[in-house]
Structures are given as structure tokens and as C-alpha cells.
């Protein structure tokens, strides 16, 4: 695929989703970047901000199969993955695998932190391996596959916060903020009128093939060794154990228990490549790296008690890291 074609498709998808979703341009772009990078996204925001609508619109624009799973404490893993059911045909009874909602190409795991860890971990294999194992049989998931999970940051009673291992499997963690007054006005106009216009399909019916091609192109984007080195230094700087002269940041030592995993560096590089293509470039720049470092690393930094007590967030620490680590 040509870079121009990629950008054209990307812009069309972006524009289509923005027809439905007011504001959140950055969130929409990052979700698309994560999608074409082959990653999964965790959306965090209070209820009513249009997270679910955003994901539904996106899947519709992409022309991919979409399933939504509302995570509740009584949700069982088989409710997600599917299970063997006894069927009868031509007088013969046999067990047949009934696919769960995870077998869609775009899966919305709504309020993922409300399900038990057992159920949450059922999604884990699907996200990482892109396959599901039920009763000893493995079923591959149809590409492209993406999990978009949401979680509510305020209602923490009766929730099961995602363990670090599972958080690490999300490519980006995006924060959905409340709309500004003008944007709220626009939301009201769109949603309280005669009819709510949904997103239309942008990609043709063989959209999956196009998406796979776009994903392949994204990985071919040129990245200079000094920029790769910069990413390595950034990720290394998030480790509290990093030595003083090794690009260590004081805030990291003070507020972090653990730094980013190598998946964080992978997410930065792929995200930067996706950002470059979205900008119409075939090479990564420093700006691309800095544009994706927050969503790529904020859920991979494990804060310590002092950070919680002083209300210091991962974004503040990342800002310090970007400031302290030199580009060259």
C-alpha cells in the first residue's frame, strides 16, 4: 500500500467518527493508530462521555464485526470466550462450540474492572495470543482483532482493578475528558434533534484486507537509529533503579515502584510510526515519539505509596522524563 492511500483511508475514518463524536479528536486518532498498530486500547473516563458510542462508530466505519460485553461481577469467562453446547442434528447429539463475543473483530469490554479477575484473565489470552482455548481446543481469532476496554475511575466500590500484567497488554491507555461548554452544546444539538445520525462505513466490504495492508505499511515506516536510541533512553529513564548519570530522573526515583516494560518501548515506536503515517510522513520524527509517549507509558508505570499520597500521576512523571532526557 502507498503511504498516500494509507493517509487517505486514515483521514476518512477519522472524519467519519468525528461526525458522530464531538471533540476527542486526539482520542479518535490514538485509537486508530493503536488499531493499525495491532494493539488494544483502554479508555478511562467517567460515564456518559461517549466512549461506547465512539467505539461503535469506529467499528462501523471500519466495516468490521463488533461485539460489546458489559463486564459485571457475575460475568463468567465462558460468557466471553464461548462454550461447548449440546446440539442435536439428524438425530445425533454432539457438543458444538458456541463462540462468545470475543470472536468479533472489534470487542468493546465495557467497564472491564467490574468483572472478576478470572473473567478478566479470559480476555488476556485473546488479547495477546489472538486465539481462544476452550475445553482444550484452540480457536484463532479473525484478524484484525482489537479489544477496546473502558473503565470508570471514580466508582471503585465493587471493582477489581486490572492487574499490572493485564494492563501491560493494552497498547494505549487513553483518558476521555469531559467536553468543554461549546462541545457540550454541539453534543446536545446532535443528540436531542430529530434523529441521531450514526457513522457510515468508510472501508469497503473487503476492509479487513485493507486494514492488514495498512498495518503492514505502518511497520515499514522508517525510523532513524538516533530516534530508537531516544525511545530506549526514555523507557530506561522510567526505571527507579536507573543510575544517576544514566539519564535518571529524580521524580522517577521518588514516585515510582516499577518502570515501563519493553512492551512500552514497542508501543512508543509503533505508535510513533502510526502517528507519522497519519501525518503523511514515511519516517518517524521526535515529535511523533513525544506525541505517543503518554498513552503508551502511563499505564505501565507503577506508582508507589508516596505518589498516591501526594496525588502525583504518571503523566506528571512522564513530563519530567521527557524534559530531562535529551533528544541527542
Amino acid at each position: 500500500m502507498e503511504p498516500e492511500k494509507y493517509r487517505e483511508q486514515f483521514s476518512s475514518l477519522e472524519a467519519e467518527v468525528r461526525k458522530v463524536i464531538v471533540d476527542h479528536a486526539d482520542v479518535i486518532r490514538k485509537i486508530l493508530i493503536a488499531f493499525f498498530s495491532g494493539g488494544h486500547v483502554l479508555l478511562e473516563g467517567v460515564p456518559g462521555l461517549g466512549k461506547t458510542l465512539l467505539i461503535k462508530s469506529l467499528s462501523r466505519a471500519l466495516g468490521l464485526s463488533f461485539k460489546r460485553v458489559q463486564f459485571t461481577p457475575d460475568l463468567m469467562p465462558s460468557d466471553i470466550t464461548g462454550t461447548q453446547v449440546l446440539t442435536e442434528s439428524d438425530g445425533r447429539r454432539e457438543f458444538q462450540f458456541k463462540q462468545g463475543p470475543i470472536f468479533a473483530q472489534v470487542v468493546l469490554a465495557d467497564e472491564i474492572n467490574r468483572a472478576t479477575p478470572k473473567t478478566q484473565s479470559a480476555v488476556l489470552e485473546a488479547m495477546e495470543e489472538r486465539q481462544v482455548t476452550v475445553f482444550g481446543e484452540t480457536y484463532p481469532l479473525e484478524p484484525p482483532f482489537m479489544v477496546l476496554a473502558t473503565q470508570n475511575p471514580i466508582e471503585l466500590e465493587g471493582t477489581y482493578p486490572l492487574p499490572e500484567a493485564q494492563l501491560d497488554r493494552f497498547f494505549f491507555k487513553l483518558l476521555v475528558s469531559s467536553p468543554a461548554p461549546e462541545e457540550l452544546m454541539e453534543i446536545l444539538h446532535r443528540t436531542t434533534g430529530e434523529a441521531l445520525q450514526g457513522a457510515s462505513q468508510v472501508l469497503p466490504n473487503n476492509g479487513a484486507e485493507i486494514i492488514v495492508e495498512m498495518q503492514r505499511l505502518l511497520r515499514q515506516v522508517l525510523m532513524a537509529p538516533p530516534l530508537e536510541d531516544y525511545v530506549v533512553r526514555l523507557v530506561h529513564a522510567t526505571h527507579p533503579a536507573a543510575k544517576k548519570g544514566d539519564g535518571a530522573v529524580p521524580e522517577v526515583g521518588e514516585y515510582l515502584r516499577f518502570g515501563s516494560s519493553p512492551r512500552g518501548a514497542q508501543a512508543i515506536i509503533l505508535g510513533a510510526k502510526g502517528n507519522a503515517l497519519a501525518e503523511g510522513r514515511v519516517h518517524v520524527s521526535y515529535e511523533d515519539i513525544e506525541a505517543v509517549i503518554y498513552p503508551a507509558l502511563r499505564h505501565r508505570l507503577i506508582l508507589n505509596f508516596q505518589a498516591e499520597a501526594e496525588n502525583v500521576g504518571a503523566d506528571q512523571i512522564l513530563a519530567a522524563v521527557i524534559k530531562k532526557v535529551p533528544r541527542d
Partner: protein
Amino acid sequence: MPETLVVRLASHLKRHALWDALLWFFPPLLVFSSIAVFLYHSAWVGRETLIVVAAPFVGLALLTGFLRFRAVAPLRRAAAHLIDERVGGKDRFITLATIQPSLCPPFLLARLRREASGLMRHLDLAGDFPYRIKRSFFQSLIGSLSVVLLFLLFQQIGSIFVPAPDNELAPLAQKLSPIPRFSELARSLEMLAARMRDQGLSAAEKRSLIREALKRVESQLAAERQLGGAANDLLNQAAGALRGMEQGLEEGQEQGAGGLNNDQTGKGKGSGKDSGQKGSGKEPGELSALEIKEQKGGQPERGERQEMGRKQAGKNHGGGEKDESGKEKSDEVKGMGKEEAGGKGGKRMEEEIPRGKTAERFLRPGEQGEKGIKGARFVTVELPEEEAGGSTGEGGLGKRRGFRPKVPISNAPLRPPDSPDAAPEKQPLPLEYRGLIR
């Protein structure tokens, strides 16, 4: 090709870095060379010392300059980064300069090159990256100028606190000039004093000038002795000052250290050394103004006697303080000159009262005087045998032993030295105390 542009810019900037390193390195080198040449020329340091000091310095400076050049010389990567910044390349040039083409999809690389080529049309290497003198050069310049100023300042301070020998010479020349028969000599001494301040003259040249002047003064002195003229003191002072200057130059050249000015240092060193070694800041042939007076035939005046006593004490106590001793000497000489000028009444009295001929010189401590030496004075003291035998030279010995000494007989009239029962011990006694014993 964008990659070629990056290489060209890198070499362009390397030339700038080379200039920066040279400019940074030049002022201190110039200052060091100037100071070294100055010190060598004014015979402060010898050729060997100069080479020993200069070779490591120049080597170190070259090494530092090279390391600085290496530190500031931009790599291709830095050059590409600069182009990106200049043309808004969004890291296109740095990507092209550093990426390995064989690992890249050709169609993407071709597209990146096309984009970069489009941008590089706006770039003019000489115009967009002109050479500018860096701050490091100004810092180096300021530092070097500070060193020069400090050097000059120390030199000035040195010249304030350490009087130059020509400072003695010039007043002497002024004193000599009113006397018609010495006017020619005074003029030559004034010229010499002026030439001694000339930094361009080498030590050898200065020495030869001093020797010439000294010959002239000595010949004049000999003529005056024959005539019995009264201006011998001034001539002797001039001769002493010239000898001191010559000796100072020799010492300064030999030692290569000890002061700021060759002449000044030479003086200080020379006098100090003498005083340390011999207890007197003079060469055997050199005489102080006081001695010159004595030699001339007069008793030293009261003030001069006191001053001489102080001088003796100072010499005994501070034999090791070379520079101070040297300075002291020059001060004394000056003081004498002042007395000479101001105390004319005393001088007249001295001329009126006839005095015996002065001793040519005193015996120095430890020196055995020969019998019949001209002007030598001895006092023969006879001690009782008990005292002489038990004495260790320590005070209070007799008291400890319970020994009651007999009535001292040292003040008893002395036996004539040539009599058979003359005392074997002989104690040289300064002339000043002769009257007391009598």
C-alpha cells in the same frame, strides 16, 4: 542527494570547529610565548628552563585544542539535525543520514529522499551556516588578557617595593653633576640608569655597560685620591652601586628566579646571599659608605655609629633573610646619602678635628689576623688560671659549683704583647670599644 548535503555540511562545520579551536587556543599561547620570551630576554630563565617549561605547555595546549576540536566538531548526525532545524525537515535528514538503506523498503526511502531534496533547495550552506566567532574565543581572550594584566601588575608591584639599583645611581649622578669635574661622569651615570630600565637590553649588554661605567668611576676615584678631593664618598657610593648592579645581574642570570625585574632581583639576591654567607652584604672589595668614610680617615659620626651597630645586629640576626638584607643595605646606603646631603655641619666638624688614619678593614668573625696587619686592633686579656681551666663558656657555672670567683683581673693593665709573660689569648675588639677599655 540529501546525504551528500549532510556530508558537505558536516565538513563545513568541522572547519568552523577547527577555527574555533585555533582561536580558543591562540590567545593563551600568544600570552605564554610573550611572557616566556620576556623572561628569557630579561635573563630570568635560561634556554634549558624555557624549553623544559614551554615544551610541555605547548604540547598540553595542542592536546587540549585537539580534544576541544573533537568535542565541538559535529558528526554527520548533528549536521543532519541542523539541516532539519533550518529547513523544517522534521527529522528527514537525520533519518537519511543515519538509517541503513539496505534495511529499508526502497519505495519509502525514495519517497523520503524526494521530500528531502525538495527541502534542500532552500538551503545555502555558506549563507545559512556562516562562521561566527564563538563565546569561547572571547572567554579565552579575556582570560589571556587578565593573565597579561596580572603579570604587568605584579611587575609594577615588584618595582614599587623593590627599589631598582638604577634608583640609587640616578640620585648619585644628580649629586655629582653640580661638581664641574664630575659632570661628565654624572651624565654617563644618568644615561646608564636610564638604559638599565630598557627592557630590550640583554643582561650581557647591561653588564658590559655597567663595567664600562665602573672603570670610569674607579679611574675618577683614583684621580681624586691623588688629589685628596672631598667628593670621594659619592664616587665610592657610585662604584658600590655599580658593583651591586653587576653582581645582581650575574646572580639573576645564574638563578633565573627571585624577583620580577632582572636588575631588581639581581640586587636583592646578590646582597642577600652575601649577608647570609658572610654576615655582611658586601664583596671583599666592596665597601659601604660608612666604611668608606672610615677609610677616608674620619671617625664615624654618632648617628652613623648607632646605625652601624643596628646594621651589625641586623646582619647577625637576619643572615638568612636574603631579600630583606639586600633591601636593608640599599636603604642604608640611601640613608647615608641623605645624611651626607643634610648633615654638612657634622662633616665640617669632622674635617676640622684631625683624626688618625682609619683601618682599611676590620677582621671578620673567625678570621685570624696577621701580626702587624695594618689597622688591626687587639686587646689582650689575661684570665685567672682557675677561671680559664673550668670555664665552659656558660654563665652561672661558678655559682652551681659553689665556686667563688676571685676578683676579676681582666681590667688589670695588660702586659705588652711582646713581653715574655704576655697572655696567650688574643681577643680582637672593634675600634669603637677601644675607648671604653682605656
